[in-house]
């Protein structure tokens, strides 16, 4: 019998909040992080809107670390503080962090050093907190946060660890900004997931970190529990390096596998946190997947990327945090900026207004370049 795994701490930093609390309040209030990008990132393209972290945060003692590592450390501080874990318990934690771009700043500045090693973020976080557990960086593009959370979940469920610090981090990078612009995926003004007039994604940055614990470990210290992790499903489209499968075969497989691992059925799902990037292809494919899995059952689905942009490897971690808080407060964060229904995306996108709902079980989709699909299942803890 696998150990039950629960979430006992959350920490977030992104364009609309430098704490999980601020992020959540602004998600419900519709505060957008989109604005003209800073001079250091503006490369003179016609698109110049992004979702950067503009509020200062402490980088004391982190001068040699890249920004993605600094963001991850900031979010991790929040998550660990929130969890109330002892210093001794933190020391034993495994660390698993997802990222898309890693630390591209050095490359953009024409320099190569040890800082660019692909595991820079997790090793930097492990060094900062002086943890003795395993650390690993998941380079699974925009689904990397879900991979990282699953990695911590698996270790605890199988009894190989009691505590894990998991999540994702990506810093705003010129490489990603130019790259998304050049593949035609970048909006020049607003991100409108699932909307008929959606024009693409907005690039964001940030980090979401979560503390996972075995239930027995959490119970022994009487910890506050946000949610239970029931499982995570993965698949690959095996179709195209950047475009989703037109019939969404892979996304359907991932959701079905997640529900199978969680021992639930589509009828049990009360809310879907969408990948919902705001691109034509992604939102269409995800809508098709949801229709195929849930049929005519109108499960509410929303995308928080309308406000914080696509934070790449941290997106699924930030979305998991939003799910935790939705379960706590029994309210669904809406899809903001929604104006006109796309008849090809015939799903309940919870437009423009938070919706109180009885939420017990939620799933969170996350997809990536390389055709990688993932789906995380969380349940209200009882």
């Amino acid at each position, binding site marked *: 019998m696998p150990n039950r795994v629960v979430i006992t701490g959350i920490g977030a930093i992104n364009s609309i909040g430098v704490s999980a609390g601020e992020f959540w309040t602004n998600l419900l209030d519709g505060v957008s992080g989109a604005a003209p990008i800073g001079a250091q990132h503006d*490369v*003179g*393209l*016609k698109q110049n809107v992004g979702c950067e972290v503009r509020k200062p945060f402490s980088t004391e003692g982190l001068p040699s670390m890249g920004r993605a590592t600094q963001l991850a450390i900031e979010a991790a501080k929040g998550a660990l503080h929130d969890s109330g874990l002892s210093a001794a318990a933190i020391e034993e934690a495994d660390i698993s962090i997802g990222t*898309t*771009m*890693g630390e*591209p700043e050095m*490359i*953009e500045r*024409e320099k*190569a050093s*040890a800082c*660019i*090693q*692909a*595991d820079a973020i*997790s*090793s930097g976080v*492990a*060094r900062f907190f*002086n*943890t*003795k557990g*395993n*650390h*690993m*960086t*998941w*380079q*699974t*593009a925009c689904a990397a946060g879900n*991979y990282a959370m699953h*990695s911590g979940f698996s270790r605890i469920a*199988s009894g190989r660890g009691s505590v894990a610090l998991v999540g994702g981090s990506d810093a705003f990078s*010129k*490489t990603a900004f*130019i*790259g*998304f*612009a*050049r*593949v*035609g995926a970048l909006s020049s003004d607003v991100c409108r997931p699932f909307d008929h007039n959606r024009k693409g994604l907005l690039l964001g940055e940030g980090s979401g970190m979560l503390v996972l614990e075995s239930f027995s470990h959490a119970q022994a210290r009487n910890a506050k529990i946000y949610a239970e992790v029931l499982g995570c499903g*993965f*698949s*690959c*489209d*095996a*179709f*195209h*390096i*950047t475009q989703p499968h037109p019939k969404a075969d*892979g996304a359907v*497989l991932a959701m079905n596998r997640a529900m199978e691992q969680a021992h639930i059925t589509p009828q049990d799902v009360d809310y879907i946190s969408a990948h919902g990037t705001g691109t034509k292809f992604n939102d269409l494919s995800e809508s098709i997947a949801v229709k195929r899995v849930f049929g005519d059952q109108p499960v509410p689905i929303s995308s928080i990327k309308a406000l914080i942009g696509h934070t790449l490897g941290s997106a699924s971690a930030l979305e998991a945090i939003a799910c935790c808080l939705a379960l706590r407060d029994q309210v669904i964060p809406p899809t903001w900026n929604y104006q006109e229904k796309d008849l090809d995306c015939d799903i309940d996108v919870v437009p423009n207004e938070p919706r109180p709902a009885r939420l017990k079980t939620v799933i969170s989709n996350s997809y*990536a*370049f*390389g*055709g*990688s699909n993932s789906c995380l299942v969380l349940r209200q803890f009882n």
Partner: protein
Amino acid sequence: MNTDSVVITGIGVVTAAGVGFHAFQSSLRNSTRCVAPKTLARENGAVEGIVGAVNDEDLPKFIQPKRHLNFKHMSRSGVMVCAAAALAIKDGRFEPSAQTLEQTGIVMGTGFGGIQSMLKFNADVRAKGPSAVNPIIFPDTVSNAPAGYAAIAFGMQGMNATLSTGFSSGLRAIRVAYEQVASGGLAAAFAGGYDELIPELCHYWQSTGAMASDHTDGILAARPFNANRNGFYPGEGAVVLLLERRSTASQRGAAIHGELLGFGSCQSNQTSEPGALGAQRCTMQRALANAGIKASEIAAVFASANGSVLADRDEALAIASIFGPDTPVTAIKSLTGECMAAAGPASVSAALWALNKKKVPGIPGQAHDSHDYKIRTSNSTSEMDDRNYCLINSFGLDAQGESLIVGRYES
């Protein structure tokens, strides 16, 4: 032996020491040093040094062209991973049904991922401007592109993951894939590591003194464990192993190379000194404990050593403290160069060859040994005794290490 252990049924090797398991075996049999002087072009200038470069001329011929799979524009890492996967499929005579493909995944480890593509992309931005940069390079800046290409090439619809723990990533990826196969999450998994030569990184290593240059008297500088070593030769490669449950492999009549028996990992949290004796010893001991095997049962140790002054010393002392002076120790980076995340899986491939042929590849180089680490190394390929297991190490610059134990398969 477990009734349903995880076995290796296919090996795909793309390194300087051979493309394909057959060619690789020839290098092992003859302990052939496959590094050579080369000039690598950088955006600003060039770097000259001795490196283990893959002969990439023939790589595309291993993969059938397919819709949405364009080798012309694919990164070197992408081509190497696709070729390695194709070779593993061929070696394993893997002809999966549509149902099996749905449950077949790929887990790759990488030390530097898409860095070379990111450098190229940014150089292109500087040369042409952001609105004219070739968008086709962009997907390759993301480290999971090679695994994505392999999935497209061969139709694998299961978990598609890429991870990094530094140089030890290849062995960690095998461990993650092992867990997926053992738990039934995947019916079959392709697992291994990749990294390509990055001229900019070689330049950096040269400037820090980490990269070796041969001594003027002809002594090889990057000879692992040798007293005259002065650094490593950078290499590259992709190595992909096919993992299946023993029952599945037997059912389809697959030839089994060997069995995965145990894993260990440890880290020292220190970056000031590459490699730490304590962490390395702990890594190997954890692998032995995990496999339930005594040190005395190990037929040979495939070390991570690459010619680095401190890291080799630490590893030698750690090995000596566990295995004593009589267990054969080898290090195939003397053949391939330091091929980073591909090195661990390449060593696993070498260990499987060694167990099946009862031979231990040597560490080629000068005619005499002059180290005093009290471990048993040999210049040339030697006989292996009847013990059934090999231990493989993979340690990185940041002292996070991984050890793995494979066993000879007996039906």
